[in-house]
């Protein structure tokens, strides 16, 4: 049963061809790029959502931080659309792959840290020592702050991977349990209801994207501006 359970998380290949490339690129088809002044409903809706989100998200940044607007918007659209498409039955979700999440988290986090180092060297080094610490505690606190800094990208990647993977696994398990119980008793109605609620809660995968980009954004803010 273990083998069968994790089988949906292997990167899909079709006769040796890695179609994972096509799967990762698929959500970009759902966002057409228009060339008109007045667009159709779908594109207008997407543009309006992007404008709403970007205004909300870039409000706390200064001029330097707002140059990251395009990057942050494409990040939230990519992760959001990928997670939502993964809720369809029998689909493959690329964000369950630790490789992809590490590939997203590490370069972006490193970019924020290096930006802070280049432009405000003293301020970014000062992050390692909070204000008002007693002198004997300083070496230990610097070590702790360094560890907490370096754990940020790992936490970003593993958080996204674990949440999406766990949600998918739970849906598999509960769906299988429902099918098995259907022949036995009518308490299946209760379990089906649990599946429904779980799916709805999992739709808050979108909230997870919010968490991802928000975390990244807070990190950018702290490193760049403070």
């Amino acid at each position, binding site marked *: 049963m273990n083998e069968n359970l994790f*089988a949906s998380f292997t990167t899909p290949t079709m006769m040796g061809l890695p179609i994972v490339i096509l799967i990762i690129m698929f959500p970009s088809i759902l966002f057409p790029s228009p060339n008109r002044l007045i667009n159709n409903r779908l594109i207008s809706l997407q543009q309006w959502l992007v404008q709403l989100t970007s205004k909300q998200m870039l409000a706390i940044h200064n001029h330097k931080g707002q140059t990251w607007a395009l990057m942050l918007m494409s990040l939230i659209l990519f992760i959001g659309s990928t997670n939502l498409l993964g809720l369809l039955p029998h689909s493959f979700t690329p964000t369950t792959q630790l490789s992809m999440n590490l590939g997203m988290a590490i370069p972006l986090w490193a970019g924020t840290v290096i930006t802070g180092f280049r432009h405000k060297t003293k301020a970014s080094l000062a992050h390692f020592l909070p204000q008002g610490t007693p002198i004997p505690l300083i070496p230990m606190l610097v070590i702790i702050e360094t560890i907490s800094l370096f754990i940020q990208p790992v936490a970003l990647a593993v958080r996204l*991977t674990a949440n999406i993977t766990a949600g998918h696994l739970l849906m598999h398990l509960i769906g299988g349990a429902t099918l098995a119980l259907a022949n036995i008793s009518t308490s299946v109605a209760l379990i089906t209801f649990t599946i429904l609620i779980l799916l709805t809660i999992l739709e808050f995968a979108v909230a997870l994207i919010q968490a991802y980009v928000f975390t990244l954004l807070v990190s950018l803010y702290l490193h760049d501006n403070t």
Partner: protein
Amino acid sequence: MPQLDTSTWFITIMSMVMTLFIVFQLKISKYLYPLNPEPKPTTTPNQLSPWEKKWTKIYSPLSLPQQ
């Protein structure tokens, strides 16, 4: 756990980088947010004479009290 099989990591990361950093950003960079259209004023504002445009206008001969 199949996610820890590193043989597929390279191609996953490469295609993700391609999609995220190039394709999506090209699409979003094409979004236009024009300002709302406003009617253009039909009357032109009052045009100033050349001696009224300079700060030394109080000393220009035409604006001094005439003798």
